[in-house]
């Protein structure tokens, strides 16, 4: 069974049906549909980070680099006033990001621990400053996307990307597929080796595995999906700018991760919803929302490390045990 834990199954049965029906409840209230779409996109991003941090033990502070690259690659590759095919560009962007991740991974993954945290951050900053200073790509203002791609596949066009509800469903579908993909990956034979490496790298080497290759492949896969999320974000808002690449984007994603529960994959969605929900509520209440958010993060790290997913699992298992 793909979803072994009760909490996971509960989440799947509650979240996805609810998410499917949501646009009907909102009765075309565009603001909220857009907000939820962004949450889906961020969830994909955070989920890819969760795979790296939670499943592979590769702590990075530079994941935003790929998020931003997803957006920038689109504006670099696509002609400005012509609708390109969404699926073709999905392929391009994921493939190129994967290639970039391969090269950077070769450098970054030679290090570990705190070094890796700082070097991933430094690479992200490098791209951040490159695009901030670049005149061709609009500097700190970024670039606008004037024409959104069309989504026909074999002559069948399912989504109209200019329609927020359509876009919402595209992102929901993407999120569902990403979740499924990571769950399958974690359960796979490849996932077995990744688990082994995280628990005991020395033992895994002594059994004859070249652990560097497995780390590199995980890094490439997670980076490509991070870039896909950035690509969706750029299409949703019709622009890309360097703030997508900034280290606060990476840091915030880590925070969402710990809120949701590290290493649980589906927790990424819970964490993103919680963070965005809290952010929205606090921001409306006080301009100093960061004070409360910061306090909450500190509290989570100190006493509530397993996050919401861990809390749910404990709750349901306790009930099972009795």
């Amino acid at each position: 069974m793909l979803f072994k834990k009760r909490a996971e199954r509960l989440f799947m049965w509650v979240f996805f049906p609810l998410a499917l029906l949501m646009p009907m409840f909102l009765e075309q209230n565009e603001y909220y549909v857009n907000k939820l779409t962004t949450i889906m996109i961020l969830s994909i991003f955070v989920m890819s980070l969760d795979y790296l941090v939670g499943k592979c033990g590769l702590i990075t502070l530079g994941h935003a680099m790929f998020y931003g690259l997803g957006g920038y690659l689109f504006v670099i590759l696509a002609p400005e006033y012509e609708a390109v095919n969404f699926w073709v560009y999905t392929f391009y962007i994921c493939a190129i990001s994967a290639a970039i991740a391969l090269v950077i991974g070769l450098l970054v993954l030679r290090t570990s621990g705190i070094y890796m945290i700082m070097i991933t951050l430094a690479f992200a900053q490098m791209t951040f400053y490159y695009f901030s200073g670049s005149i061709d790509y609009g500097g700190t203002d970024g670039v606008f996307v004037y024409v959104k791609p069309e989504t026909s596949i074999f002559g069948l066009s399912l989504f109209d990307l200019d329609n927020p509800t359509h876009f919402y469903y595209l992102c929901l579908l993407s999120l569902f597929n990403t979740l499924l993909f990571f769950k399958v990956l974690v359960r796979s034979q490849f996932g077995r080796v990744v688990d082994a490496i995280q628990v005991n790298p020395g033992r895994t080497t002594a059994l004859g595995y070249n652990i560097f290759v497995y780390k590199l492949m995980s890094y490439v896969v997670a980076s490509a999906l991070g870039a896909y999320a950035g690509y969706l974000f750029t299409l949703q808002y019709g622009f890309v700018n360097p703030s997508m690449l900034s280290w606060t984007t990476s840091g915030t994603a880590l925070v969402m991760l710990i809120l949701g529960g590290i290493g649980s994959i589906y927790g990424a969605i819970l964490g993103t919803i919680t963070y965005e929900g809290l952010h929205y509520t606090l921001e409306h209440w006080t301009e100093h929302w960061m004070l409360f958010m910061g306090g909450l993060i500190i509290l989570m790290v100190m006493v509530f490390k397993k996050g919401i997913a861990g809390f749910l699992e404990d709750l349901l298992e306790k009930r099972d045990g009795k």
Partner: protein
Amino acid sequence: MDSTLFIVQLINGIQYGLVLFLIASGLTLVFGVMGILNLAHGSMYMVGAYLAWYFVQHTGSFALSAFISAVIALCIGVVVERTLIRQLYRRNHLDQVLLTIGMIFVFNALQSLLWGNDPLGVEVPEALAASIPLTGIIEYPVYRIFVAVFCIVVAAAMYYVINKTRLGMLIRAGESNREMVECLGVDISRLYTIVFAIGVMLAAVAGVVAAPISSIVPGMGEHILISCFVVVVIGGMGSIKGAFVGALLVGLVDTFASVLVPELSSMMIYVFMAFVLLLKPQGLFSS
């Protein structure tokens, strides 16, 4: 680039590098002795600058303000170590990163709560407001030279403390072998508190001395933090000597890049770092 401009840039680079060293030395000290990566270290630099501004407004004396700010920073360091950082010693890197990100949020919020979000500035103290003529037209401000000299004095003091005093001996021992220090009957938790507080104070003092020559804005802490990361990665984590060399290199690269390749200047230090890492993955002075 003519020779005068070259000299001016050289002095600028060294002066910027020395300020970076002041901040990075605290970061690398805390890492070397306690094994803690403190992302909120840059926030202390910001706190120092804002405190300097606040007290200059009220006392009018820069020297007095600098002193009060340093003392406050020391207290902040003690409190933060005793309440938060202490929880991290047996935790993994991820917890360190997350907890200190939480601290950044809190410090940033407090900054905007107490001092608002408008850019602020501190006047150069009158005694140091002069300029030294270099050639007929180009002058160099005395205050910048004062900053450089001040940083060198602090660096020399640190060298003395670490190599010649009992505290320094414990710091060096703590870096190599935590258990041994405990066996010697030293109260390791007090040592940690002292080291962390000194680290915080160094960052804050850097913020104070840099206040008159840079604008005081929200987010200044994060910006400087990431430059310090580059410094310690180049120098080798935990090495004070490495931080010194790394800081000067970063200062020079950054300053010259902004003259030679202005559009790419901000990313040059990262390119430089990647290059160093290719040659020496553990930094220049790793132990």
